[in-house]
């Protein structure tokens, strides 16, 4: 009515005009990422959909076909399979077809919220236009195309090859790259599978994600996991994000952080880029990539200078802080910090004060801290700062480490790690015997599978698999180089040095990809190699096996906060895909260890098998019986399922159930949930919290490093213990000797005594020692000790700043050089000094003057093939791009939107679109790492199996990234390398 009449009020017209102008302007600025990239998909996706009706009908049509009589509508509760926040989803299934998805408001973790990926997860149930790998395939060497084969053919051929390689080169010539996207049961079974095959050469995404965190943090105080939780951040007064872009990597965690901010918490973001997370910060600090230690120790310097440290806490619970203090006060003065990080003293002091004076304060970190040659030291600097402020073991404080994939935590805990059996037991004889017992497999039989002397030796890592293939046999700490790769749920474009990876791929005898999608591996290995590189191995066989997603099976997964959630199976495996555990069993059958895999011996069988598929609940029960170290024992399938059904009874800030069937439990029984399920430990929401009784989720630091060092006790001081513990001083970890000494041995039942005799709390399968120690006496089975600010078994006992191998600052390299080379490290020679010195000699900093860093986008996850095959996500990010500062762009004649060539010292030249922005400073560039499917300017679409290439393909930044590995864990140095950028010119010859 109003609009059809002429408006008389000037204000009204003006208001409308301004509104439309501002919104219109926003839509037209061309400066934000959304409008920057092509939106209407005339290139990528329109072709797929243009011909179809406006609404592509799926579920309903199929469901209608199947409906004879009443429709069967079920709601299956599952968990998003993308990141580690663990958002619950109610999947509505009609006659076996996934038709709707509903938010689970009841979930205490996400309260119904989702990011772009979680809200689009139903796409995984859509079969029309699916880009899934639908059936087993083999690469035909003549045509270079993938041909369909049967499951039986594939499994038989693969098994035969594996057997041949094992016979001729030992099992160590096979490398199984497992997955952080497997559920706990699959991850555990895979570690067993690899062990029964006879090698420790297995790994998964944690290596390139938080391996440095796990090593650094565990060596500081006991466990290497997130100490508190996303929810607990609501109790924080100040949150310091350093090396974390939570707004894009863990969007739903921001629900908790922004709520905290709204109720008075301060937010500080430290990052080389002004990220979307920084946009929400009270204080943003721009820092030079890789200089976290100077910054954190710069803060610590201020803390000590002003007497803000928690002296009692340090006295009671921390070892070695005096040594750290000495070094920090001398070394990290504000001017030195500014020289290293580029942070002005005023800002440093402001941040230090904000962080110290608003306690409890928490630190959040992700890849920004971990992906460096000194990652293990950087994370420890964060821990040390938190210890100094007394923030560990406190609600609202903690070291909140945001893990990556949906089950990277679980895979790290119980899955395919090269240096340990499940549960961080390690690889010593005692650990093997423990697992042999639990697995119901003869220890000697397992030993015989391994090459002599290899059973107790750490395997090599996924970050270096290419060197394990390309190295000379003599240089390797195993019989022969790796000849076969099984990429089991892992992407290749998340590892550095892509050019070398292609060489390694071409050299292999066999490559097997087991994945719901063909993955970039399929295209990379099918494409022709560089003309200057060695020719492809003529004897090579490449197989693609279609695995089902986590929506097509049930099982448990562990979120970043250590809560374990149970997923119900939503739909049956689509097309010809099979669940990973079916595949493991099927291959085991062909390889001759199927019985061992399910513990079938002596009239017993641990894990039932139905239609070739091991039963997941049985596998979880086996985990419950074996992983005492980290308390994966109390989370029985029954308890977990009950939690999923009663989510609304859990409090959002404390994660504790008040009343209801789960009364007293913490949601998801966050590990450690010690003892047998019968003991009903409630789980531990915040680690090391002495204000609570151990049966109430409380704890203290772990006694893992000895009792005394250089005359100083490593155990906790008198009076420092968890609430209500019968022993109120420090004490070592629990074993039968200690229990007897304390006079508590007779509290065990006779059955328990029989089993517990001669054992410690980690090998006592009855759980009796734990029961008596914890339930009867309130003591912690892993002892009560001090955290270590000085980790003497690490290359740098006190964290030292060292420049990246490829640095743009030779002056800083001279002051803070990297480590010496290592002759044999995770079975491979590993270079540090040589690389760094050569880079200086070659004047790399002049030829490649820009720091290149990489990271995440909210729309995609990991290597990206899965999410880029989802049209709803792919439409939002259609091209890979480089963020380059205005000044840097103008200096190079680059305009916003130009295609540019990014060159690195590896000789690679990748083609991406330039996004000119102030997000990065003039010396830094950023490229997202989720893309693959292009190779140095060439589209690899034709090398994918027919119809499976993702909608969106692009250059993988890791095609161009450089050599560099963490000195403790072999983590790759992806966050700090160098590049040069120029306008792209097509070359006459490729």
């Amino acid at each position, binding site marked *: 009515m109003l609009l059809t009449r002429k408006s008389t009020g000037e204000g009204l017209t003006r208001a409308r005009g301004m509104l439309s102008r501002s919104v219109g302007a926003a839509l037209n600025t061309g400066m934000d990422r959304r409008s920057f990239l092509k939106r209407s998909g005339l290139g990528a996706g329109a072709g797929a959909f243009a011909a179809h009706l406006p609404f592509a009908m799926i579920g309903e049509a199929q469901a209608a076909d199947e409906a004879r009589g009443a429709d069967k509508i079920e709601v299956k509760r599952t968990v998003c399979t993308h990141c580690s926040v663990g958002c619950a989803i109610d999947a509505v299934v009609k006659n076996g077809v996934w038709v709707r998805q509903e*938010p689970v408001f009841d979930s*205490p973790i996400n*309260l*119904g919220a989702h990011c772009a990926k979680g809200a689009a997860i139903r796409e995984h149930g859509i079969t029309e236009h699916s880009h899934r790998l639908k059936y087993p395939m083999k690469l035909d060497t003549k045509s270079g195309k993938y041909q369909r084969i049967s499951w039986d053919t594939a499994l038989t051929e693969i098994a035969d090859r594996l057997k041949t390689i094992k016979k001729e080169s030992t099992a160590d010539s096979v490398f199984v790259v497992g997955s952080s996207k497997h559920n706990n049961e699959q991850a555990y079974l895979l570690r067993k599978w690899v062990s029964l095959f006879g090698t420790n050469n297995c790994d998964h995404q944690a290596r390139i994600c938080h391996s440095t965190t796990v090593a650094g943090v565990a060596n500081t105080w006991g466990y290497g996991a997130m100490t508190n939780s996303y929810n607990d951040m609501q109790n924080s007064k100040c949150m310091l994000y350093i090396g974390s872009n939570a707004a894009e990597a863990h969007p739903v965690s921001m629900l908790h952080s922004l709520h905290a901010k709204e109720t008075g918490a301060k937010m500080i973001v430290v990052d080389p880029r002004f990220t979307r997370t920084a946009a929400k910060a009270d204080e943003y600090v721009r820092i030079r990539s890789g200089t976290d230690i100077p910054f954190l120790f710069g803060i610590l310097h201020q803390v000590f200078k002003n007497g803000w440290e928690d002296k009692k806490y340090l006295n009671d619970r921390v070892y070695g802080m005096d040594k750290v203090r000495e070094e920090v006060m001398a070394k990290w003065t504000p001017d030195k910090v500014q020289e290293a990080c580029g942070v002005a003293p005023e800002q440093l002091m402001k941040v230090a004060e904000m962080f110290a004076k608003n306690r409890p304060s928490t630190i959040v970190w992700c890849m920004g801290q971990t992906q460096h040659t000194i990652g293990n030291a950087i994370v420890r600097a964060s821990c040390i700062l938190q210890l100094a402020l007394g923030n560990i073991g406190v609600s609202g404080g903690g070291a909140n480490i945001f893990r990556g994939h949906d089950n990277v935590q679980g895979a790290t805990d119980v899955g395919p790690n090269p240096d340990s059996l499940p549960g961080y037991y390690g690889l010593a004889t005692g650990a093997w015997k423990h697992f042999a017992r639990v697995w119901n497999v003869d220890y000697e039989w397992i030993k015989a599978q391994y090459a002599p002397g290899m059973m107790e030796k750490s395997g090599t890592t996924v970050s270096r698999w290419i060197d394990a293939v390309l190295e000379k046999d003599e240089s390797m700490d195993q019989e022969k180089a790796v000849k076969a790769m099984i990429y089991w749920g892992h992407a290749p474009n998340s590892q550095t040095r892509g050019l070398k990876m292609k060489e390694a791929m071409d050299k292999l005898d066999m490559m097997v990809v087991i994945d719901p999608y063909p993955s970039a591996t399929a295209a990379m290995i099918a494409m022709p190699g560089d003309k200057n590189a060695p020719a492809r191995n003529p004897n090579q066989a490449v197989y693609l096996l279609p695995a089902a997603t986590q929506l097509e099976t049930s099982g448990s997964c562990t979120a970043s906060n250590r809560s374990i959630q149970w997923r119900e199976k939503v739909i049956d495996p689509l097309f010809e895909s099979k669940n990973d555990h079916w595949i493991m069993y099927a291959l085991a059958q062909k390889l001759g260890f199927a019985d061992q895999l399910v513990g079938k011996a002596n009239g017993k069988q641990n894990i039932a098998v139905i239609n070739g598929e091991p039963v997941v609940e049985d596998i979880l029960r086996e985990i419950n019986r074996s992983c005492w170290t980290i308390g994966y024992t109390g989370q029985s399938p029954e308890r977990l399922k009950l939690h999923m059904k009663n989510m609304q009874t859990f409090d959002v800030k404390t994660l504790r159930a008040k009343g209801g069937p789960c009364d007293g439990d913490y949601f998801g029984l966050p590990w450690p949930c010690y003892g047998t399920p019968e003991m009903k430990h409630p789980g531990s929401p915040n680690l090391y919290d002495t204000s609570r009784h151990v049966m109430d989720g409380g704890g203290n630091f772990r006694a893992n490093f000895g009792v005394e060092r250089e005359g100083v006790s490593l155990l906790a001081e008198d009076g420092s213990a968890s609430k209500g513990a019968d022993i109120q001083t420090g004490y070592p970890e629990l074993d039968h000797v200690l229990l007897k000494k304390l006079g508590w041995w007779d509290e065990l039942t006779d059955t328990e005594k029989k089993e517990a005799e001669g054992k410690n709390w980690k090998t006592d399968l009855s759980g009796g020692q734990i029961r008596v120690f914890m339930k009867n006496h309130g003591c912690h089975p892993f002892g009560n000790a001090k955290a270590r600010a000085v980790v003497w078994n690490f290359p740098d006992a006190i964290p030292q700043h060292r420049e990246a191998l490829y640095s743009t600052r030779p002056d800083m390299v001279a002051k803070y050089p990297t480590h010496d080379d290592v002759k044999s490290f995770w079975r491979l020679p590993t270079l540090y000094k040589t690389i760094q010195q050569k880079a200086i000699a070659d004047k790399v900093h002049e030829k490649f003057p820009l720091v290149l860093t990489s990271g995440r986008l909210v729309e995609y996850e990991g290597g990206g093939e899965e999410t880029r095959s989802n049209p709803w996500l792919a439409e939002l990010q259609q091209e890979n791009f480089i963020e380059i500062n205005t000044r840097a762009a103008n200096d190079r004649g680059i305009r916003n939107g130009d295609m540019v060539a990014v060159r690195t010292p590896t000789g690679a030249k990748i083609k991406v679109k330039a996004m000119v922005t102030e997000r990065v400073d003039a010396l830094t560039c950023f490229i997202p790492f989720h893309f693959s499917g292009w190779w140095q300017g060439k589209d690899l679409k034709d090398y994918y199996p027919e119809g499976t290439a993702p909608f969106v393909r692009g250059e993988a930044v890791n095609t161009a990234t450089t050599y560099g590995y963490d000195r403790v864990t072999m983590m790759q140095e992806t966050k700090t390398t160098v590049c040069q950028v120029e306008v792209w010119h097509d070359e006459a010859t490729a």
Partner: protein
Amino acid sequence: MLAAMLGATLLLGACGDNEKLGHATTYEKGKYQGKPDTRPFDNAPSAYSNGSAWDAGKKEGWELALKRRQQNQNEYNRAE
């Protein structure tokens, strides 16, 4: 009678008989010319209603169900 009907048709002819819509239309500028629609609460809750319940045709129950559900957008209900 026939004449009356014819006469009536002639009168209506000015307005037009719309075959597509299946009923006679009187085009009034500014008034909706499309198909009729039901109100959201006219039908009973379906299998997909996720716990929201109301009596078909009754507005109050439906409104209440929606408002209750809307509180899920306010996390302060579960965490101060």
